[in-house]
Every structure is written in structure tokens, then in C-alpha cells.
């Protein structure tokens, strides 16, 4: 019995001691980093910290935080903010709404009304619900849908390279 307990402790310790990540979340965070380079924000957003907000709990938070430790958005320091509710959402450059929070897309868009925020979702029909960019997986590959109208409505300009690669909605 003693040996069993030792093994269990070791296994549990291994789980606790290692940080979490998922391959999908990592890939999405890499895409978001690319969005910081290929989308133009208004001048007022081009100084200070570059804020990426995430609504709710998601493994992407950890991935974005890892990314922020080594990468910058141009000359801006990337800061990751986690919003526990729609009411907690603040002014940010990019708002990521994970699939688990998809029911709150409309409320979240309402909350950031007037801000030049790139809304990124991960759900069926995300761009129809108001997102500028929506993640999809096609043939096991990470792709994204882009709504030009939802982007320009937020005062954002999208580079030609992004349009070329996107599934334009």
C-alpha cells in the first residue's frame, strides 16, 4: 500500500508541477500575435501598452501571457488582461472571446461600443454575431474568418496580407 501511495503522490505531483498549454490555444495565440502586426489601430492606440483582453477562463490566457514575455506589438509592450465578466471588460486593442463565452458575444460588443477594439471569437458564425475575426479549423488546420465590415466599423484598417489569407465573410 505504501508503494501505491508513493506512486500516486508522484503522479499527482507531476500534474501539479507542470504548466498547462494546449496546441490549439498556442496556435491561436500565435495568430493573434500576427494580427497585432497586420491590423492598423488609430493613432491614439499606438502608444502605451498594447492590451489584449480575454473574456472568461481559457487556456489561451496562459499562451498569450507566455507570448507577451518575449514579444512586442511594434514598440508597444503587450499586456494580457483577463476579464471575469462582461462588466469587467475595459478598453483594449484586442478582445478575445473564447468558445466557452460565445453566448456573451453580443453583450461584450455592446460593452466595448465606441472603442477601436478588434473582436476575435472562436465559434460557429462568430462574424455574423459581430466579431471582426473568427477562428475556424479546416482540414485540421487553423484558419480564420474575417469580416471587413465589422473591422472597419471599429475604425480598424486591415492589411492586404490578412485579407488574402482570411476566409472573407
Amino acid at each position, binding site marked *: 500500500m505504501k508503494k501505491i501511495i508513493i*506512486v500516486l503522490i508522484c*503522479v499527482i505531483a507531476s500534474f501539479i*508541477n507542470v504548466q498547462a*498549454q494546449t496546441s*490549439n490555444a498556442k496556435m491561436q495565440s500565435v495568430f493573434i500575435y500576427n494580427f497585432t502586426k497586420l491590423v492598423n489601430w488609430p493613432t491614439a492606440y499606438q502608444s502605451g501598452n498594447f492590451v489584449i483582453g480575454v473574456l472568461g477562463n481559457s*487556456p489561451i490566457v496562459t499562451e498569450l501571457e*507566455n507570448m507577451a514575455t518575449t514579444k512586442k506589438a511594434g514598440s508597444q509592450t503587450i499586456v494580457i488582461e483577463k476579464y471575469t465578466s462582461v462588466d469587467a471588460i475595459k478598453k483594449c486593442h484586442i478582445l478575445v472571446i473564447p468558445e466557452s463565452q460565445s453566448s456573451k458575444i453580443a453583450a461584450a460588443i455592446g460593452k466595448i461600443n465606441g472603442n477601436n477594439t478588434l473582436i476575435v471569437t472562436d465559434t460557429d458564425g462568430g462574424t455574423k454575431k459581430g466579431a471582426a475575426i473568427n477562428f475556424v*479549423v479546416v482540414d485540421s*488546420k487553423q484558419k480564420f474568418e474575417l469580416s471587413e465590415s465589422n473591422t472597419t466599423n471599429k475604425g480598424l484598417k486591415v492589411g492586404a496580407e490578412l485579407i488574402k489569407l482570411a476566409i472573407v465573410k
Partner: protein
Amino acid sequence: MKHKVSILSFAILFFAISNSVFAQIKDTLKQGDLYDMDLETLMNIEVTTASQKKQKISDAPATVISLSAEQIEKYGWVDLKDIFKALIGVDVSYDVQGEVKTLVTLRGVEGNQKILILQDGQRQNPITGERFIYAHNIPLYLYKRIEIVYGPASALYGADAYAGVINLITKEGKDIDGITGSVGYVSTNALNAHILFGKQINEDIDVVISGRIYNGEDYALHEAYKDMNDYGSVSNYTGVLGDKSKKYPIKNWNFLTKVRYKKFTFGFDWQHELESNAPSCIPTNYAYIENNIWGQDIRHFYVDYNIVKNKKLDLSAIATVGDYTINPASNFYITNTQLNNGGASYKYGYSGYVSGLIKANWTLSEKISIISGISSDAVKSFPKTQNLSEPYHLDEGLADNLSMYKDSNGYVFGLKGLTDTIFGERNYQNFGGFVQAEYIPIEKLSVIIGARYDYNTIFEGTFNPRAGLVYRATRKITVKALYGTAYIQPSNYYRWENWANPYAMHIPNEDIKPEKLQSLELNANYFINKNISLRTSIFRNDMTDIIRPMPANSQEGDYPYYNALRTSIGESPNSGFVEINGNLGKMYSQGVEIDLNFQFFSFLSSLGYTYLEGEDLENNTNLPKTSQHKVNWNISYSTKKFNVALSTRYYSDVNTTNTNSMYGNTGSGDKSLKFTGATIFYANTYYKLNKNIKIQASCDNVFNTKHYGGAPYGESIWIQAKAPQALRKVLFGVTFNF
């Protein structure tokens, strides 16, 4: 137990690896090499979303489980036999007799010859229907994917795609892109090592070459199972045979090469397997010594020519030459009841074949597609010989002299009409044609109808239809209704099997019909979200004309059978038990499978539950060697450099036949017709020191639990009533790639 590694040392290594990697993992995450790629490149990287892979599978007209190279690595599965402990719907017994080694029962259908094994489309099972050996003989590092297709598929594949099909898809040179290798030490005192080279030279040429050895000893069962009903007589024995040391040898190697040149693919593989033949045989009858072994060699050479490949048509022609040989050293080493004397009864058998297949996948329109093909096999068959007093003399050709079993009227075994005392080649041909059409009348619905006709020069025509409906109710829910049929060939192995000893005799029977199966299945896949999917299946299999051993019928005029060996115990050669392989009775199996797959953070998990019931209608018993309830839980935690995985297998009480010597109605035991199940744990961990070197430790049966599985032919007086399973085995290994 000098070769056993203590659980404590395993745990310490496990712990040490998991903790020492923490800091380095953080460093790796910080490196962020993906962040330096451009978006276009990123969009061509495949992501490991279980639901996406499942979505493709969900459209197939069958229940399919796909295992990736990544999963194989995570769980530390080494050989094909290892996946069965983690698969839903499977009853599995390891450590059984040499002609089987691992007994696999899929959805209640027992028999290793009843699952068709394909490697890159090439049949791995002996074409002449011998039971397939799952031993340390099919290394998994070769494969980028394994697909397990549940249910009958003779409508596409012909004979023996009965309970299911396992497709082994080897890696391409471009997948390997260099050299990988491994060296591992197994605590049973065995060495497991491989080397694999793969390279895409240019657009036209892709090369793979691989070799593997598994050499040493298997688990010493008699050291753990000392009860006299298990291996007690082996443990306690110190006589002459014991002096030869009680070993469970393994002397296996594999070679594979595959070269693609433009539209041609050339492949050659050679599997050499030689392992102990003793486990699950009654220790007072069979010696547990190094010489008691069983082995085989299986080879294939094929050329696959892709004639046309465009959006409308994918047309290929494949030619194969293959053979199967029972190693002449294979034997049953039989002792007398005092274990102080004995001798080997050697066996030999051979089959070779030339096959051709032309297959075409047509996409006629967005709504109609067709798979079709024709095949031809010419088979040279020399069935397994009688018991021989010395290894078969290969230089004497393919002829087995049975003249000693000829009675006074010249009938071999006393079998009326059988006067040819030289058993030689029993060659035959098989021709097949198949077509399967898929029609999509509305976006959400696919209708699949197919059939295959085979003509065999021995058992003539066989027709196998299948049908399926796949309804994609929503993007997340798919429902399937499936009907399929299949057959097991009345192979030369079963038709001509013969052996004799002073107590009993098994004689040939040419008049065996194909065993047939009909299956109905309802299947639903629900992708709850990207990270969670749920599959449920309800199935029923009805099997008729079961091919199995049965007492020989009386002959016309009560003409007696003839067993010359009876005289050695003072009995008449016209007496004694006589059996044949024949078609006997019906069986059914039915059940439910529920399979939940989910991933969160870095955890990847599958949780499966199987409910199975069924009956052998000939004997009015539950399906032997199966459990009513089974649970499989596999969970892994992985980062870029580190992985830990745990598999758990629970199986409830195991059914036996009513003639089982310990649990059957006719035995001396409790007549309960079942023995106790168990819960077994398996663990694997590895750590990648750098991009070139990985260290690994894995452990089978972590808690050293004594447990049993059903034994093939467990009702026989020569075979144990239940098969003791190995206790803890640990593997330490190093893998490198350049």
C-alpha cells in the same frame, strides 16, 4: 526476481523527470519559435483538435477509431498488441500459447483470425487463415496512424474482415526526415531496439528503411503464479527438465523498406517471430523450457502503381507476392505427468501467394461517388503438419508422410476415402469483385450501398452486402445506421489440421463451410464542443456455422477411426477421442459502447464503457472469454518536452464455457461459469532532453495485480482454465533522432 525493477525506483524516476523538467519547459515556451513564422506558413500546420479528426471519421459508414503516432508515443505502446488494453469493445488476454500469444475478442467475436490486419493495404494475416499472432512482432514506431474499423467489412475486403479491420499506415520518408532509433531495456530481461531512416529525396522519390529487434525473455509467469492451478508444478519442479532453465524466450526481428518513385511505390517487409509456446498450456503436460517455442516468418513484396489521380478518379493497380512460414523449430514440448521426461512435437507449415488488385475511387458528381475493384489471388498452401518427432526437413519438399496412421484398409486415420498418405500442397485461387456507392440525396444525408462477390476454388461463391445511412443532423451531431456481413474462410489451416497423441486425435475435415456474420449497428457522434466529443454505439452480431473443434461424427457403418499411438498405452488404435474442425451452431453478441473524448489544457483523455452480452447457442452459455462490463480510461498530460500518461482497464467477471475444467458445469470447480475480473493500470512517461534525445520509462500493471484472462481453447484438457497475466513490467528506453 533479479531482473525486476522495483516500483519504488520507477516512481522515483517518474518523479525526478516530472520535476526536473519544469524550469526547462518554461524556457521552451519562451522560445516561441512559432511566433517567428509568417501567417501563411502557420495556416498549413496541422492542429491537434480531436474533434476535427473525429469529424472526418464520423462521416465514414462504420465505427472507426484512429490512433495517431502522437498517441502511440504518449501512451508508450510498443507493439500492436499493446493498443488492445486501451481500446473500447475489446476483451484481451495476454500471455497465452504461442500460436496466438494475445487473444483478442472484438465486440464478442473471438478469434485472432477474425480481424483483418492491413499494412499500407497489404494483408498481414496469413492468407491461409491461421490465427494471427499478436506478440512483440508489430512495432508501432513505423506508423503514422492506426485505424481500427469495428464491425464486418467483407463487402470491401473479402475473407476474414469479420469482426473488424485494423489499418496500419506507415510513415513516409518526409514524415521521418532523417534517422530515428531507440534502445530499451525491459525488466523481464529483454532488449528492444530499432532504427528508422526516412527521407524525401525530391518530389519524385521518398524512401523509408527500418529494422527492429526484440530479444530476450518474456515475463516469468511461474515465479508469480505458484498456485497448483496456475504454474505451481513449474515453480516447484527441480528435476531434469527444470535444469534446462525455465525460460520464456523472445527472438524477434523486423525489417521494412518502402520506396516511392513517381507513381510507383515498392514495399518489402519481413517479420520474424519466435517466442515461448508454453504459457497457458497445462504445466504437467507441457515443459516450460527454452525449447518450447513457436515462431513464424511473414514476408511481403508489393508494387503499387497509381495509374490516374485527379478530382474525378483515383485508379491504382497493386501486385503482391507474400508468404508465411511456421518456423521449423516450432513445437509443443510434451512431458509425462512426472515432468521428468518428454520430447518435442514439431510442426511446420507454409503458404505463399501472388495477388493482384485494381481499385478505383470515382467521384461522379458532388452527390455520387463509387469505390470499386477486382482482385485475384493464387495461393500455394502446405497446411500445418502432423506432430513430428524432429524438425521438418525443408530439403524434402512440401510433403507430410502420414503412413503410420494408415489402417488395414489403407485409410489414413481410418477416415473413409482418405487413402493418400502423403499430404502435400493444397493450392487454390480466389477471385473477387466489389463495388460501394455513396449517394448524398440531401446535404445532411449519405446513403451507402455496397457488395462484394468472391469465388474460391475450394468453397466456391460468397456474397457479402453492406448498407449504411449517415445523417448529419447538425454540425455537431451525426447519426449512423449500419448493416454489414462478413465471412471467415474455411481455410486450409482448419480443413487440414491434424495431430494425434495416445489419448486423442484431431483429423482433417474438408467439408467446412464459411462461417458467416451479420451485423446491425446504430451509432451517434456528438461533438459537444471543440474539446469534447461523445460517441455511442448499439450493435448486434449474429454468427452462424461457427468453425470450431467438435467431436467427429460416426462414419458410415460405424467404420472406426484409427489412432496408431493408442497402442503405446495398451489401448486399441480404433478407440479414443476423435475430433475435427467443423461448423457448429450459432452465436450472437450485442452491446453498447459509450466513448467520451476530451481535452483541456494539456490533458488529453478518452473514457470508454462497454456493455456486452451474448450467447453461444450451441452450449447455452454466455460468450466465453468475455466480460459484461469493461471500462477503459486513458489520460495523458503533455508539454513540448514532457509527457505522462496513465491507462486504466477494468473488466468484470470473465465468462467461461460449460466444459471449462475449473468453472464449467462438467468440471470439478464451482460451476459458476465465470472467474473474477480485475482493474489494471499502465503508465508511461518521457522527457525530451533536447530535440534529438528522449528518455522514457513505462510500466505495465503498475500495482502488480494478479489477474487472469480467458485462454484460447480453455475448455481443452491441454490448456489452462484461465490464463495468468503478467505482473509488473517496466521498460526504460532512450530514443534519438537526427
